[in-house]
């Protein structure tokens, strides 16, 4: 990289230089097509998958029900108090990014980032409407005439439609998709839905159509963070300078004496969606999408030179290969202590989450003693404690539970009486998928040990009445008496 000292007339800002990536085919381009179809497919189709959960619950397979604070994911139903699952997933996402970045570099940027995927889709549309690189450059340079206006309008319309579909699909994740779609057309959907669609459409249109690589270079913090997580074993894309230089044009019928393998055909630059020349070395802009590799390999095949002048490699390979060592298989860099540690942590969290998921009880039960006042002295000397009991019935049907109180040893105490506010007897019926609040009274007989001890541990039991495998659970709490 050549550099110069600052001059007074140096520009303070500059316009974006349009980039016209050329069409290319090859291994990595195919991989990107496949990944793009899969990811866009998942994104657009997921809200439409149905999942039968019975009459009380929505039958959308993936639904973030913000109004009722539930998250449905196929057979799973996450309640707000189970938000630790989401926290766990976020931790896994974080560790996963460490893992992928330290092993494979900016693979996320190159293949999976929505900005990359949608930009790729928008470039596909652009190419379909305006032709390949040279046609697009010609169109860009020519004055506004009928052809340019027609093609631009067609392109923008298609982009807008994609943007609309993108924003539209987003809102379907938050409410029943078929109902919302109908409401969107009849104008009955909530203003929030319309606003969200409008914002998502506008950002998709602007970021995919016009901002493109500017988002990665100037707006996104992720490339900068990733740079700090990479080391010399991290897989990245590099130009094998020791093989390519000195570069020079190859003329038909001439033997290129003293020249490297690079014939300076600019194929790698022409296909780059970021508009950089990979031969300049590691660059912040490079999203490691692999298109330059495809482009260069195609040229190497044509001129009868081995592939891999541009390729995926680790930074330390460059020095090693320059010294004449054999080309190292890139997968040897992936397995190293650092990535193994990340992988262990990542899979540890994953296993813990899955275990936690299967250990979830279909019943949540807790009892909070009323601390104001600690106890109530009744007229006959009985000491009453008041508790708030919460039962969350995660069965799909109404369940009746019997409530009882015992000592921590599980034995009944004859001086202790349990009653439920507003209920006859000791049973409550909790409606399906509901959180049920019930005030609970425990009364200790006058002058009993419980009544005269300031604090006694007790257990409150909840037991399903009937059912094939009756659920039983208990929580420990305390009984406060009046010390004498």
């Amino acid at each position, binding site marked *: 990289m*050549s550099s110069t000292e600052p001059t007074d007339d140096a520009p303070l800002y500059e316009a974006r230089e349009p980039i016209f990536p050329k069409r290319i085919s090859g291994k990595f381009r195919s991989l990107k097509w496949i990944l793009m179809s899969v990811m866009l497919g998942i994104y657009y189709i997921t809200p439409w998958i149905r999942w039968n959960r019975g009459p009380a619950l929505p039958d959308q397979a993936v639904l973030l029900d913000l109004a009722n604070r539930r998250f449905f994911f196929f057979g799973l139903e996450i309640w707000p108090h189970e938000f630790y699952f989401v926290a766990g997933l976020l931790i896994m996402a974080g560790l996963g990014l460490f893992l992928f970045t330290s092993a494979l570099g900016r693979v996320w940027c190159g293949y999976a980032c929505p900005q990359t995927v949608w930009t790729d889709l928008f470039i596909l549309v652009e190419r379909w409407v305006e032709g390949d690189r040279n046609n697009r450059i010609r169109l860009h340079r020519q004055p506004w005439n009928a052809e340019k206006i027609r093609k631009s309008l067609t392109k923008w319309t298609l982009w807008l439609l994609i943007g609309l579909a993108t924003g539209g699909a987003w809102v379907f994740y938050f409410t029943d998709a078929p109902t919302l779609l109908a409401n969107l057309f009849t104008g009955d959907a909530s203003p929030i839905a319309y606003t969200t669609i409008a914002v998502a459409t506008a950002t998709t249109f602007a970021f995919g159509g016009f901002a493109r690589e500017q988002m990665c270079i100037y707006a996104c913090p992720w490339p900068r963070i990733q740079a700090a997580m990479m080391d010399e074993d991290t897989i990245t894309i590099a130009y094998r300078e020791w093989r390519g230089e000195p570069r020079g044009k190859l003329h038909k019928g001439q033997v290129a004496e003293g020249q490297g393998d690079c014939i300076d055909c600019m194929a790698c*630059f022409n296909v780059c969606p970021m508009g950089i020349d990979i031969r*300049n070395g590691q660059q912040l802009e490079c999203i490691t999408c692999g298109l330059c590799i495809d482009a260069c390999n195609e040229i190497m095949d044509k001129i009868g030179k081995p592939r891999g002048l541009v390729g995926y490699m680790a930074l330390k390979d460059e020095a090693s290969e320059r010294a004449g060592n054999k080309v190292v298989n890139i997968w040897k860099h992936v397995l190293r202590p650092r990535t193994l540690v990340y992988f262990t942590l990542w899979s540890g969290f994953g296993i813990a989450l899955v275990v936690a998921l299967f250990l979830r009880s279909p019943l949540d039960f807790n009892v909070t003693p009323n*601390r*104001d*006042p600690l106890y109530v002295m*009744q007229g006959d000397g009985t000491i*009453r404690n008041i508790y708030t009991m919460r039962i969350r019935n995660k069965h799909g049907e109404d369940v009746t539970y019997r409530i009882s109180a015992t000592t921590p040893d599980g034995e009944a105490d004859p001086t202790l009486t349990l009653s439920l506010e507003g209920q006859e007897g000791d049973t409550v019926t909790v409606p399906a998928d509901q959180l049920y609040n019930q005030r609970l009274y425990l009364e200790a007989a006058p002058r009993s040990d419980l009544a005269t001890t300031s604090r006694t541990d007790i257990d409150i039991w909840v037991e399903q009445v009937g059912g094939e495998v009756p659920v039983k659970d208990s929580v420990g709490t305390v009984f406060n008496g009046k010390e004498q």
Partner: protein
Amino acid sequence: MSKKPTKKEIQTTGHSWDGIEELNTPLPRWWLWTFYACIVWGVAYSIAMPAWPIFASGATPGLLGSSTRADVDKEIAKFAEMNKAIEEKLVATELTEISSDPELVTYVNNAGGAVFRTWCAQCHGSGAGGNKGFPSLIDSDWLHGGTIDQIYLDVQHGIRDPLDPDTNAAAQMPAHLDDELLEPAQIDEVVQYVRQISGQDADAELATAGAEVFAEWCVSCHGEDAKGMQEMGAPNLTDAIWLYGGDVDTLTTTIRHGRAGVMPSWSYGTTEGTSRLSEVQIRAVSAYVHSLGGGE
């Protein structure tokens, strides 16, 4: 385009550390326009919305006339409008019928609870457990009665509130020593008697003498059986609950100097024609108190 040199001339700031040079990269032009747009937005916003402080009079109102205070007023009005139907229902419903209407139960739990925590918790405690001199509202003992109708009356007109002519419980515990009704020795005797009938340690000899004093002086309010009279506001002296305390010192003080607890009247305003609490609030808080576990 393909002829364009790909190795751009890149300026540096001239700073170099360990061979790492600091680049002097120009800003993207769209960034500059975004910056200008933000300035324009900022100026326009400060003209359109309340922004610039004015000494002693708040801030410039803004052309759009936006006001968060007005927004809050609107929200309050909106919720008041939403609550109108249930409030009318609450006023129209017999007090004793409230607990059998789930919709009203939810309303009095929230609205009545809010009134209680705002106006009642200072004396009765946020959990209604009471304090010395201020009765617990969740136990089995009621000085004036624990039916919802009586609770409603007590909240409405207060207890011994001098401002409200309709206030409850005109009677009060006399100051037997100060008013020279009883000799100190007689008071000591009756204290022992009261301790005896409430199942506490007592001097049997004094208590026997005290029974005569009690029969002469106390039964008119507390009753022959000493179980109190709710219409007089006279407490039950045989149970385990003491408003001021059942120990010898406190009982002596109570009998010597008298007691006259006061609860404000909540339907009676501090100025003519006003009311501290509305009818809806009084009903809601009465139903709330009645539902706490002590209600009869």
